[in-house]
């Protein structure tokens, strides 16, 4: 039990001390802040589920260095993003630009939504027609009345 508690304590304590963000070379905190802000929206191509800001891959390190240096050269964020897109393609962007090849990506969900809405509309319309009270014929009405009367009599 003691061992278990110790292990648990270790598990709680260690990760926070191990978890270091990607190595920072913070000469200029302002540039560092800008770089991290920009690279959060950029994909690391080596570990594709991570952003350039969060990845510890060597490749991400190099690109962060590149971004930092370009910021020191007074390049704007847009110029830096263009620089990266020219080399790695739109894939580095977590927010892909709207253009013909990405129309499906951007508008596909809305197409599905519209299709779903249309289907739902017709389905509900048909359903309403089905559950509308079917008209009783005269004999059916009389039968029902007789049944009702009958059951009333029984209960009383």
């Amino acid at each position, binding site marked *: 039990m003691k061992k278990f508690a110790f292990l648990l304590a270790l598990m709680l304590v260690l990760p926070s001390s191990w978890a270091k963000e990607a190595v920072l070379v913070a000469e200029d905190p302002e540039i560092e802040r800008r770089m991290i802000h920009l690279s959060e929206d950029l994909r690391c*191509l080596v570990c594709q589920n991570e952003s350039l800001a969060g990845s510890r891959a060597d490749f991400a390190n190099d690109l962060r260095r590149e971004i930092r240096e370009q910021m020191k050269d007074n390049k704007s964020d847009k110029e830096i993003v263009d620089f990266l897109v020219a080399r790695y393609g739109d894939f580095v962007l977590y927010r892909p630009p709207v253009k013909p090849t990405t129309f499906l990506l951007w508008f596909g969900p809305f197409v599905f939504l519209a299709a779903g809405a249309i289907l739902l509309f017709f389905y509900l319309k048909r359903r309403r027609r089905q559950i509308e009270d079917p008209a009783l014929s005269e004999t059916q009405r009389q039968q029902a009345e007789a049944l009702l009367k009958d059951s009333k009599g029984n209960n009383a």
Partner: protein
Amino acid sequence: MMRYLLPLVAFSVLVVFLLIGLNLNPRQVPSPLIGKPAPEFQLQQLQDSNKTLTSKENLGKVWLLNVWASWCVSCREEHPLLVELAKSGIVPVYGLNYKDERDLALQWLKQFGDPYTVSIRDPEGRTGIDYGVYGVPETYVIDKNGVIRYKQIGPVTVEALETKILPLVKELQG
């Protein structure tokens, strides 16, 4: 009839999308550099540190640029093919020694053979960034006008060589 057909159609569409999606390789990111002039470089040669190579020196011929490193495991996989290709003399192969140490790189070539007409050094990976390198090995086919025509991401395979690279090289040399 409709109530059985509709889900079946929807399911088939889903299966087709999944099949396409699962057969795509997420590592194969299409390079925007294809059809664009190969980025210029002037880099130190690996074998002779006093010499440099510039990308302009290769204008007028079709050449391959193979990005490699001694620390790269899949480079060993493709290396015998490159050695063979270099021997055949069909197309010159230049090496970009990416983020490597000179001693280790030289030793690696001694051990596995040196297919490269010239290897150049990119110890900090800056030329690599210009070429959009993100996973070594990568191989570029560059034409007589210095335009990138093809990029092989990952090791060169016999299949890629026979179906894509060599036919393209012949066409470009033609």
